[in-house]
């Protein structure tokens, strides 16, 4: 059978397009449609109204939730960026042998060998009132009574996020840094650039793509988080997704759908903002 060559590319993308359509496109459209529906008691009623959105926007809780998540996103983004940058820089420019590079990279992925939940829960015995950190500090005589801010606080939430998401920064930054010819760094030194100037004038501009992609990963993961914030804050903080889950539990599907659409828009806007700063397409084609 002879297939016209103009059709071949479409056949090649068909499987992925189909999967995306069925498991992403249709559900998304459904959510958007349902977000305009009405609900009476525990029944969803087809309609076209903006009540769900009005409800979300008029609730002070929504604003608080988004501000909290935004705060977490920014802090976690900054920390993962700094940690990711230094780790990748070390791996790319200081580890000479390929074997050691692979070894250290594997070490970075070790946390991923267990599930997210276990990795998170394991912070509790470390950070708790009678946990490892408090006992060590007290044993050393540095503090008289346990530090309470360590667990079930913003601090523990951020620790868990950083632990869970740093690798996404490391991988994307490593990828773009590894493509820098080390001679370029030497050329900068030869030109009289200080260590700091080499980083700001050469390395950072050349890893923009990695920074942008890693940032999108981290920011969207934090914004879309459901359980880390709940568990690590001991129920004190909540996330937008957790609020949705509550609504779903009460069978208020249209209301949850409206929240989902808003969250989606917020995340898409954040990603768009990042991509506005860095033209990833141009970088990837070059």
């Amino acid at each position, binding site marked *: 059978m002879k297939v016209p060559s103009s059709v071949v590319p479409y056949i090649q993308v068909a499987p992925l397009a189909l999967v995306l359509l069925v498991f992403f496109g249709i559900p998304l459209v459904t959510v958007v449609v349902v977000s305009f529906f009405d609900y009476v008691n525990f029944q969803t009623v087809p309609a076209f109204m903006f009540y769900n959105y009005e409800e979300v926007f008029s609730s002070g809780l929504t604003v608080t939730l988004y501000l909290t998540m935004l705060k977490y996103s920014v802090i976690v983004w900054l920390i993962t960026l700094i940690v990711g940058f230094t780790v990748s820089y070390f791996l790319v420019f200081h580890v000479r042998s390929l074997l050691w590079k692979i070894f250290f990279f594997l070490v970075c992925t070790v946390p991923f060998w267990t599930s997210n939940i276990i990795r998170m829960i394991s912070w509790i015995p470390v950070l708790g009132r009678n946990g490892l950190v408090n006992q060590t500090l007290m044993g050393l005589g540095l503090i008289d009574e346990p530090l309470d801010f360590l667990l079930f606080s913003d601090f523990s939430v951020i620790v868990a996020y950083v632990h869970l998401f740093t690798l996404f920064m490391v991988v994307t930054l490593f990828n773009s840094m590894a493509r820098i010819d080390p*001679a370029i760094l030497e050329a900068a030194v030869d030109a009289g650039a200080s260590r700091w100037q080499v980083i700001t004038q050469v390395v950072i501009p050349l890893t923009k793509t990695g920074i942008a992609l890693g940032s999108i990963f981290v920011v969207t993961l934090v914004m879309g988080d459901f359980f880390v914030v709940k568990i690590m804050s001991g129920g004190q903080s909540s996330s937008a997704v957790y609020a949705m889950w509550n609504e779903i539990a009460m069978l208020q599907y249209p209301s949850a759908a409206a929240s989902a659409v808003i969250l989606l828009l917020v995340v898409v806007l954040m990603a768009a903002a990042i991509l506005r700063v860095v033209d990833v397409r141009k970088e990837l084609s070059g």
Partner: protein
Amino acid sequence: MAQTGGIELANLTKRFGDTLAIDSVSMTVPPGTYCCLLGPSGCGKTTLLRMIAGHDEPTAGDVRIDGQSVLGLPPAERGTAMMFQSYALFPHLTCLDNVAFNLKVRGVAKAARRKQAHEMLDRVQMDGFADRVPAELSGGQQQRIALARSLITNPKVLLLDEPLSALDEFLRLQMRGNLRQMQNEFGITFVHVTHTQMEAIAVADLVVVMDHGQIDQADRARAVYDTPRTTYVARFIGGQNVLSGKVVAVENGAAILDDARGNRFTVPTGDTAPGTGETRYLSIRRDRIEMEKLADPSAARDGTVNSVVGKVWMTEYQGTWVKVNITLPDGEEFVANIDDGRFFANPVHEGDMVLARWPAESVHPLEHRESSFDTSRGGMHT
């Protein structure tokens, strides 16, 4: 203007772990010299360059520029500038910003550094490309940008790491001339690393032949080509036939040698007094060889001194001369470059037995030193 940029290396040594990359090298490059470091890959020439530049620190010894030790100084404070083999242009910057980079990190104001960069681009005939990025340029153009970037800080010494190796043959010859011209124009010292014999001989005032982290010979280009010091240099530079034999007698300042093939050679003894039975080495330039076809190869040799007999296995026409490859009875190769007029007046063909001979005054004595490097790869086959 008194020229600056003299380089002195004193017992310079570099180890990488257990490997001795540079073995106590001492050398002087006078100011304003075009110096070529020549040797096969792995001979340490790039390491030597990087130690002058300050990108590698020596294990022992000293690097002095204009009499001042520069050990421990960062590259920019040595008065050197390096041009990297890959050019190492900043891919995210325009040509103008690439050239101005050195001024930028030194805190020169934007307007001033742009003006200077434009002038420098003009000097390498690249001002029309100021707003392009390196990826949009050809290899030769990239190289000129790299050159401009290195020269903008007025270095005393420009260090070039295999500057021509990434270019095609035509551009290589053109850029070779350009480099020499730039060096004349700027009047600074150039140190140029290459593994191409022709390149070194064509551009350099001072050719430094290296092997295994040591200098075998540092001399004017003509001296390195015409009077190599050792068998290694003769073979590596090429253009020479290297022979050896055992001393049977010494007469009138010349030793008479017999080789295992039954040939007899003479070689000037110079200041040395060789003892009978000692092995001596000599070279004869390929273009000093006379050749004649032997009508009857089985006829007894008439005892002609300074000659060999062999079979022609290949002739190659080179334009002004013909390269005749001759195999000696023991399989050794011997090459005669015969002027094309003389060759075609009396041609030989593959399979012919020939007598190749040379005048006694064309013989040059060599010190014996071999390299574990495969020198048969090297050599200008001229």
